């Protein structure tokens, strides 16, 4: 989106620029939401057994409302990795000749 009085790219009307800005913003919001949902599912309120199995029980889920240290670290790492995957996929899409985000 053009800012600071810089002219719009050739052939792009102001309407189109607003449209693209809106699309970009919606994309970012959607990215955030999906990231948040995914990392919550992967990181929060899971019972880990050392063998790597995930177990959880309906009755005793959400024993507390605070996030513990393990969950916090998992969230940070999950966000970081999700972000990297987002970049990788973006690269692959633009390499394939698709419009890059």
């Amino acid at each position: 989106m053009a800012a600071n009085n810089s002219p719009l790219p050739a052939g792009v009307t102001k309407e189109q620029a607003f449209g693209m800005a809106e699309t970009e913003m919606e994309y970012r919001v959607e990215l955030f939401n999906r990231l948040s949902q995914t990392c919550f599912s992967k990181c929060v309120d899971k019972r880990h057994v050392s063998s790597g199995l995930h177990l959880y029980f309906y009755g005793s889920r959400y024993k507390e409302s605070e996030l513990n240290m393990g969950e916090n670290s998992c969230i940070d790492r999950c966000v970081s990795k999700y972000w990297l995957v987002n970049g990788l996929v973006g690269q692959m899409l633009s390499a394939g000749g698709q419009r890059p985000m």
Partner: protein
Amino acid sequence: MDKNMLAGLEGMPEEDKMRMASMIDQLQIRDSLKMYNSLVERCFTDCVDDFTRKSLKKQEESCVARCAEKFLKHSMRVGMRFAELNQGAATPDN
């Protein structure tokens, strides 16, 4: 998604700025409602499993309360990290 997005729009004419601000407002409202819906669905799915009565059991009520609070805290943390990554801030790989 917050008004910090407006920081990059200083040079724009007033009417364009207002149009952007109104777009961001609408997006924010829509996003909050979406979050509300998905949070309800998630906490219902995770906490409610007994359909012998219409009313919620005490246990189900507290589960929902904790679920919602936990997700909101999680969402805030994710928001912090997301903002860091958006700005290209380098963080240790640990």
